[in-house]
């Protein structure tokens, strides 16, 4: 399907997986989840993981437990005695258990 750039991806995935529409829970749960990282959607973010790694990418999705989907992600490796290394990773999902910080890159 060749729709515009702002197509509803979650609806497309649900259709492909033949899943029903999610029942709209009371606005509370949805609003709380959105407040989490809603402001950072589609922005460049830097995710610091629990083990101290940092991954930079475009935030494409998240949920209440801070699982995070990053597009065009790149891991930045710093060492005190070496120049910074960048490892391109592509489209990544980082599990919320491992997420320590999500920072908006200016």
């Amino acid at each position, binding site marked *: 399907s060749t729709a515009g750039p702002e197509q509803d991806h979650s609806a497309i995935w649900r259709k492909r997986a033949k899943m029903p529409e999610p029942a709209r829970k009371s606005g509370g749960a949805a609003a709380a989840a959105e407040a989490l990282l809603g402001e950072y959607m589609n922005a460049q973010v*830097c995710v610091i993981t*629990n083990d101290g790694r*940092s991954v930079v990418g475009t935030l494409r999705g998240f949920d209440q437990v801070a699982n995070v989907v990053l597009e065009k992600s790149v891991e*930045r490796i710093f060492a005190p005695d070496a120049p910074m290394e960048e490892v391109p990773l592509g489209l990544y999902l980082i599990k919320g258990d491992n997420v320590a*910080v999500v*920072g908006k*890159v*200016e």
Partner: protein
Amino acid sequence: MAIFYSFFKTLIGKEIVVELKNDLQLQGTLHSVDQYLNIKLTNVRVVHRERYPHMNSVRNCFVRGSVVRYVQLPAADVDVDVLHDATRVEARALKAAAAAGTLAVRVRWR
């Protein structure tokens, strides 16, 4: 059971330093907090940034509640007596609820 959630809400707008379990320390203004004590900071500055170059261009960030070790608060912004009272009320309610077999507690934060 939302005693510290309410407590942090009273600190929104204040300067705090969040120390994470991986030793990273972030200083910033408390922007918001949620039920999991996830914290959002604005005007973030990494304490000891020479050691942590990762976040040089980050001014706003979200910190997952589960990775926080300490939150350093300005003493002037904390009314210890109110906190003490609220904790005492909560502890009493918890004891009563545990005895009665129910654990639905509501504490009104003054």
